[in-house]
């Protein structure tokens, strides 16, 4: 009897817990079922751009169906078809119009909002490149949600990890907004496969919002080299190179011998040694290559912010106390004008 009474008390107690647990479980599964992600892809002249891979990779990590979004002139046959081949992408929504070719946020943001509402997406993801950075906050404001920028990891459907203070602190943040608008750090999400998928391409809604800005021109640095943000090897030069002529004379053969992209510190960019678009750091590009070789760079925290996730860091600097040596896996103290050409020569002949 006593035993039976105890079990029934237990059972009663359990019964009190069970409904909450059941409700919680239901919530979770409802979320999983309703979770639906829109990966906003950047395209240029019909080709998907680098940031798009990270948007797709991050979207796939969330779980739930992934729809890709592309807009521009004649994209269905080009970049939308390219997006449809990504493994895991279920659907591609394409809007064909010359008006969106340059990705101007003034008309692109209303376009996205229209399609987000129509598709009832819970997550909107874009790469944290110039396109995503200028577009997504505008979209978030129109949806009245607080964006989460430049995430490096996804912990759950509402919890994300992002670096703050130039990467000197790592913030784990939970979003309470109904729609999560997110930009992702390219170097943290690279594993989307561009083959094996067969998504259907459908037409998106086009609200024909007026363009308030006029695109005048662009000047892009043409380069045969691998793209800095996604290169597997990066050689980066700093103030120690002394002039633009020396920068080119020293860095180009080194990059060629390694098949690497060229980067630069802010000091080198500000002094005119290298183009702005090559700047690595908090305010420039974030890179995480297999090998980052720094030449004549002291290693200020703003610079380290952009490269300290590299697999292997090597440094050549004449100052043995330069902060770069504290993070470098291998350091060589010496005159770069001597050591770098020797290194380039030896790598090439190896």
């Amino acid at each position, binding site marked *: 009897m006593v035993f039976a009474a105890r079990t029934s008390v237990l059972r009663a107690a359990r019964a009190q817990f069970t409904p909450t647990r059941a409700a919680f479980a239901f919530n979770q599964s409802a979320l999983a079922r309703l979770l639906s992600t829109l990966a906003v892809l950047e395209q240029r002249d019909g080709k998907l751009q*680098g940031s798009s891979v990270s948007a797709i990779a991050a979207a796939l990590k969330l779980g739930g169906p992934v729809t890709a979004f592309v807009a521009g002139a004649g994209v269905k046959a080009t970049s939308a078809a390219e997006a449809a081949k990504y493994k895991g992408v279920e659907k591609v929504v394409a809007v064909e119009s010359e008006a969106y070719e340059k990705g*101007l*946020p*003034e008309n692109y943001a209303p376009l996205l909002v229209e399609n987000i509402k129509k598709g009832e997406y819970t997550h909107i993801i874009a790469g944290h*490149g*110039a396109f995503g*950075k*200028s577009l*997504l*906050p*505008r979209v*978030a*404001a*129109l949806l*009245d*949600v607080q*964006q*989460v*920028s*430049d995430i490096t990891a996804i912990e759950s459907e509402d919890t994300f990890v*992002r670096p*703050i*203070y*130039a990467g000197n*602190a790592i*913030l*784990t943040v*939970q*979003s*309470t907004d109904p729609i999560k608008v997110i930009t992702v750090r390219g170097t943290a999400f690279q594993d989307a496969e561009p083959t094996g998928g067969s998504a259907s391409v459908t037409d998106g809604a086009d609200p024909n919002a007026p363009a308030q800005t*006029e*695109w*005048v021109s*662009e*000047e*892009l*640095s043409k380069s045969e080299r691998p793209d800095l943000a996604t290169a597997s*090897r990066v050689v980066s030069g700093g103030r120690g190179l002394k002039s633009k002529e020396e920068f080119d004379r020293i860095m180009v053969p080194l990059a060629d011998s390694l098949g690497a992209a060229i980067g630069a510190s802010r000091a080198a960019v*500000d002094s005119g040694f290298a183009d*702005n*678009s090559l700047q690595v750091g*908090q*305010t420039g590009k974030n890179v995480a290559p297999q090998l980052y070789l720094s030449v004549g760079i002291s290693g200020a925290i*703003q610079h380290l912010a952009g490269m*300290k996730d590299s697999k292997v860091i*090597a440094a*050549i600097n004449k100052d043995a106390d330069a902060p770069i*040596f504290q*993070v*470098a*896996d*291998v*350091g*060589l*103290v010496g005159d770069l004008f001597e*050591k770098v050409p020797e*290194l380039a020569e*030896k*790598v090439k002949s*190896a």
Partner: protein
Amino acid sequence: MASGLRILVPVKRVIDYAIKPRINKAQTGVETAGVKHSLNPFDELSVEEAVRLRERKGPLKVDNILALSAGGPKCADTLRTAMAMGADRAFHIDVPDSNDGGLEPLTVAKTLRAVVEKENINLVLLGKQAIDGDQGQTGQMLAGLLGWPQATQASKVDVKDDQGTVEITHEVDGGVETLKAKLPLVITTDLRLNEPRYASLPNIMKAKKKPLEKKTLADFGVEDKKRLKTLKVTEPPTRQGGGKVEDVDGLIGKLKELGAL
């Protein structure tokens, strides 16, 4: 359309860029007490650009430059700096100091929208990002809320005519792009835009007499609503420096050993 430029320059007080922030023991944020703070470097650029627009005497005269900051009492110092550089007046929106990173960009953008409307602003110059939160959102959000054109990461701003046509060159991946838009307009500044001036001593003295009005979020009908919850703030994984080698052969050998070559 516009008779002159009425410029709003929002500025933020942040931990000085040269200081390595320390995470507090409770892992809820970054230690801010007793740490040197200064004007966010990108906001210095926007104050400078506003002042240069006045000095350039372009086709549109600058009527007024309003600096604004939201935060604890010490933001007043930041605003005095902006006024010493050339801003005419300032609003200090009093928000209690906190360890959770302060107002969220959406809240700031909503506040700025209200200020723009009340003060009849036609050009907002913001930094492209604050170096503490590294979010890079406020300018774009404000432009979206106002329905104005935006130019982010500007490296050149050129007022073309008295009709308020502005040409902006801005930094994009792999180069620069030039855009044309009409006032009213939101611009965010990039490093290459200009070289901010140092405030001279006489100007610092003069700035003390310039009007600094204290406001609250409620004055602009905005609530400090948090959409993001900080779960924790941690140290990034530290890298172990791997020591030094003697010569180039040593370097190549080590790189091979590490699998990088």
